[in-house]
């Protein structure tokens, strides 16, 4: 750490501040005056207060005070941080333990199934392809057309729903459909 930064950290920040009035500092826009003029005026004729942060942030004298306000005590900060990480650890461990418990439970169940009904066990172990279509579904799709077909094809269990509307630069020509009704999807 460089010593100027250390000095900044150690500086005594006084709690008493005085107020002085400054020209140009607080002109309020009156009535229907264009705020853009105000912005331009403020850019061209900046206020002559010298202890404000510089416009692009190269000089920020108030950082120490703000840090002090946000984090008044380093020890308290460390305590809070440790408590938070402790909490996160507990949540993580609880989640992992629950997952582990569920896994063990399913594993025991499968083991029991293997002992009791080996054929069913083999069936249960088969991996399901979510994109696979049963013959009945295939026939159904042949019959459907248009939005109904899209509705059936769009949602596949376990995969991203493909009903997302692609964003465009301009809104639709026909506007918003207030009378939208979802397409009936066969179960």
């Amino acid at each position: 750490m460089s010593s100027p930064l250390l000095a900044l950290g150690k500086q005594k920040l006084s709690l008493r501040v005085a107020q002085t009035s400054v020209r140009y500092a607080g002109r309020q826009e009156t009535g229907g005056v264009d705020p853009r003029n105000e912005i331009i005026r403020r850019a061209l004729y900046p206020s002559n207060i010298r202890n404000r942060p510089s416009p692009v942030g190269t000089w920020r004298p108030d950082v120490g005070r703000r840090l002090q306000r946000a984090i008044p005590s380093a020890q308290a900060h460390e305590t809070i941080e440790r408590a938070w990480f402790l909490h996160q650890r507990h949540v993580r461990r609880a989640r992992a333990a629950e997952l582990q418990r569920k896994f063990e439970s399913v594993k025991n169940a499968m083991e029991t199934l293997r002992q009791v009904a080996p054929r069913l066990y083999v069936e249960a172990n088969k991996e399901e392809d979510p994109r696979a279509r049963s013959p009945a579904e295939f026939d159904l799709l042949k019959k459907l057309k248009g939005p109904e077909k899209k509705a059936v094809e769009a949602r596949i269990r376990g995969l991203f729903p493909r009903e997302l509307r692609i964003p465009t630069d301009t809104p639709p020509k026909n506007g918003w459909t207030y009378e939208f009704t979802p397409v009936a999807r066969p179960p």
Partner: protein
Amino acid sequence: MLALRRLPRFTPRLAGVRGNATLEAASQPKADTPPPAPRSSVTAQSSAAKDKQAQDAPEDANATANANADGQQPPNGGKARNPKPQPEGAREWCRPIAKGVEPAYDYALRYILKDAKFIQRELKALQEAIAAEEAKAEGTRDEGALQGMRERAHILTVQGEINLPDVRWKARNGLVDMNRAVHRHLVEQRWREEGDLDLLMERIYQMKVVPDMLPELHPSLDLRIKYAEPPPKSNYLRTRVKRKLKTVEPGIFLAPEQTRRLPEISTTVFHTERRLYTLLMVDLDVPDPENQSFTTYLHWLQPNISLSAFISSPHILNSHTRYVPPHPQRGTPYHRYVLLLLPQASPTKPIEIPVFEDSARVGFNYRAFAEQYGFDAAQGGGAHMWRETWDETVSHIYEHTLKQEEPKYRRMPRPDPYADLKRSKKYL
């Protein structure tokens, strides 16, 4: 709109301080000195608190109570010349901010205390289980499980208290009680992770101590050395100012007159039982003209030093191979001096090493020595090193301490191509 101007009461001159402060600057100003030994001086944080202007770090709030309190236990066994009386409560932790100032802090405290209680209950149950297992007869015990339970008990002991703010505050400010596992853990963690071990190992590797002298070095204890401070710049003060002892940073250059006397050694060891260590100090760069190379010289050897977590300033005798002050020869490049504190093969049984004669010190082979007596620096120990170059003091050492003629080294003189010509007559 009004501008805010600070009243000209205590405006710290921050000329040149333009920029964005970071929290690290406020939270942990690095101590100038190496980490404190147990009961050694409070860190730079509280020394900063002695300056009345600093007020933000909460340690200061606690440590302003400590401001005049010197928690220092100097290495001469606590016999400080002027032990300052400590105000009541200076050694106790108190909340850094009042209740209600930061609700997150209050909640965090409650959460931590609850968790600590939970872990301590778990630890108690485990300790009962361990006691029950130990109560069984020798043959029926499950030693593997018992060892596992003991390790878990140690982990729970540390975890149960490590988050408590008062424990952390005490460990950071040198008020450790080495009886408590959590304090030992925190001190070791600080030594290992906050830069001191890293600095030592950086210097050891950069100065090539590790391949040259040792194949592997993995320190397990914090070894700190103090030698006399360098002489004052003015000659008038040289004999009039008493030289204080100054901590040696690993790898720095010292003058031979600083290392004339024995160093003051302080150790922070992290095991509670007493174990035996051997101290040795070796010079790695003694010139060996016969072999056109360099050899080593044993300056000091002291076996059977008993160390434990409760001994911070071991009383190291000079009874075995006596300390010979470093004497880097004239004309040689800088010499590296390494101080090692190695654990002995048996922690309780003293070993017998024959005293090295002065003639046997040169050409000391550390690797053969370690193999012979069973020292393994990869298993633990402490190390330190520094460098020195020739000074007139070395001549003094050769004359009075070593009582030898001082060697002077330099490059071989170049053969003079005009030697014949110079001998023959020029003008007839």
